[in-house]
């Protein structure tokens, strides 16, 4: 056996210190997530029930449930999804399948990166200027959904691009060799083989769109709007609506004397929905990766 010299001992000592420090830093990042989520759930526990989800807010949002904002968020998410998905997926197809490595492609890539980096409040200003005023949609669900769609599109583009890139080149070559055109190859070989990545992107878009507040504040979401209880089609495309994220902001800062359980309940529903949707994306990704044949 070798005898440990002071030098190796010191080396081992700094090694374990470094390890401990890095571990500490990682724990400090994970711990808040666990603490915060459990604290919010603990505070919201008494109010959480099916009634809380299905009742409309009452008494100036100081009682009742969250049906109207919940429904508004569902509307916004679905409509923005319908707008963002085709454009986002095709943009990714362009970047991965058609574009050559040129200054133009680099510009498109740069634009996608920048679109993801534009502050949410600037998206709100854009939505107000372009959709609400210029296009004349007014403050409406449609204007808010368009704003959300543009804001969340980079999420879809990024994960679709990654999925397309992971399809082996030989798949495409085999398809071209039997005489298929570019689009036929994409349609019948590339897209079916990358559907998992595309789905992941769509799911992440949903979670992002559901949580955003600033972009919808001035384009379609309002503090309060009365709708009949229990009706699924309570909002029209050109109506204004309530939204969960906005509702949380409203009842925690704008309305006095709200019983504290209400905002906690709203926060937990919003957080729970977003985390559940993300978990779904993760599970889907792990499952489909394990089934991959190449």
């Amino acid at each position: 056996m070798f005898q440990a010299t002071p030098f190796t001992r010191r080396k081992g000592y700094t090694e374990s210190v470094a390890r401990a420090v890095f571990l500490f830093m990682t724990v400090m990042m994970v711990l808040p997530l666990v603490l915060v989520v459990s604290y919010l759930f603990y505070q919201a526990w008494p109010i959480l029930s099916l009634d809380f989800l299905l009742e409309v807010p009452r008494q100036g949002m100081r009682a009742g449930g969250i049906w109207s904002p919940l429904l508004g968020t569902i509307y916004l998410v679905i409509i923005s999804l319908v707008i963002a998905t085709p454009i986002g997926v095709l943009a990714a197809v362009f970047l991965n399948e058609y574009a050559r490595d040129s200054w133009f492609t680099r510009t498109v890539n740069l634009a996608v990166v920048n679109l993801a980096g534009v502050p949410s409040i600037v998206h709100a200003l854009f939505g107000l200027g372009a959709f609400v005023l210029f296009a004349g949609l007014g403050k409406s669900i449609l204007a808010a959904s368009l704003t959300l769609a543009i804001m969340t599109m980079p999420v879809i583009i990024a994960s679709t691009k990654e999925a397309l890139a992971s399809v082996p080149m030989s798949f495409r070559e085999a398809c071209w060799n039997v005489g298929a055109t570019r689009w036929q190859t994409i349609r019948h070989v590339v897209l079916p083989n990358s559907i998992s990545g595309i789905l992941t992107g769509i799911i992440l878009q949903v979670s992002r769109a559901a949580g955003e507040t600033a972009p919808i504040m001035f384009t379609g979401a309002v503090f309060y709007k009365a709708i009949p209880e229990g009706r699924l089609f309570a909002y029209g495309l050109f109506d204004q609506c309530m939204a969960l994220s906005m509702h949380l902001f409203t009842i925690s800062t704008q309305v006095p004397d709200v019983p504290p359980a209400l905002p906690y309940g709203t926060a937990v529903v919003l957080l729970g929905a977003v985390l559940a949707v993300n978990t779904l994306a993760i599970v889907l990704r792990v499952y489909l990766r394990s089934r991959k044949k190449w």
Partner: protein
Amino acid sequence: MQTRPRWEILSEAAIEAVIRLCGISAILFVFGIFFFVFREGAGFLFAGFDPKEFFFSPEWYPTSQSRVRYGVLALIAGTVSVTALAMALAVPFGIGAAVFVSEFCGPRWKEGLKITIELLAAIPSVVWGFIGLTVMNPLIMQIFGVPIGLNVLNGGIILALMSVPIIVSIGEDALKAVPDSYREAALALGVTRWQMVYRVLIPAAKNGLLAAVLLGVGRAVGETMAVLMATGHAVTIPSSVMDSVRTLTATVAAELGEAPVNSEHYQVLFIIGILLFTITFIVNLTADLVVRGVRRR
């Protein structure tokens, strides 16, 4: 020799045109954002706008009866102070966590930690703001004995938690991009992991790590709801972390609803939007150039 039917050739060309259009749309959207924000703010920008007052005066009195003043220095100071504190916390912790995830833990832990980071990144900003308001606020009041806990410290911690995931995931990518032969060469010389990280990996991945930090800064500067709810509403240049401030983003979010359309105040808020767009554009562009520098090498 069989040729393709005519409609097939046509539809191929049509679909390709649609795909190209969707690709270009990303550029159109970025230009569109700049154009429409600029368009709304242009009226005041070209008439009566005083850049000297705008950038160097801390007096923000957009609705004053006697004399309105639009100086955003205090708002810039708010943004800078909160962002700086957030980065002072998030950069060491984020890079540290990236190193741990990438170099120190086994594959099973790695997967779990990456999922946790992903979930941390998914928490909506309004929920973070709510946490700042209901959890951090009383905590800060108790620990530091200050009358109000909505201040730079509160906002900084919240923003740090929000921007750490992006720093970790981009930083981890940067470390992963360092070839394994570097690690093998270092380990073959008998160094410990820490020495390898400190002497080999960090110098080799420094551009990627810098890009991670820049993207974190971009995220922190542009964050709106969390800072609106967690930093208090005081348009002052802060002298300590216990002072309440207001950031550029929070000002727009708080005042846009009350400013009448096409009034001066409304247009100034759009000019702040142009300023924010420009800042984040430059930050993202720099991050992109830095990353591309890595790839080329």
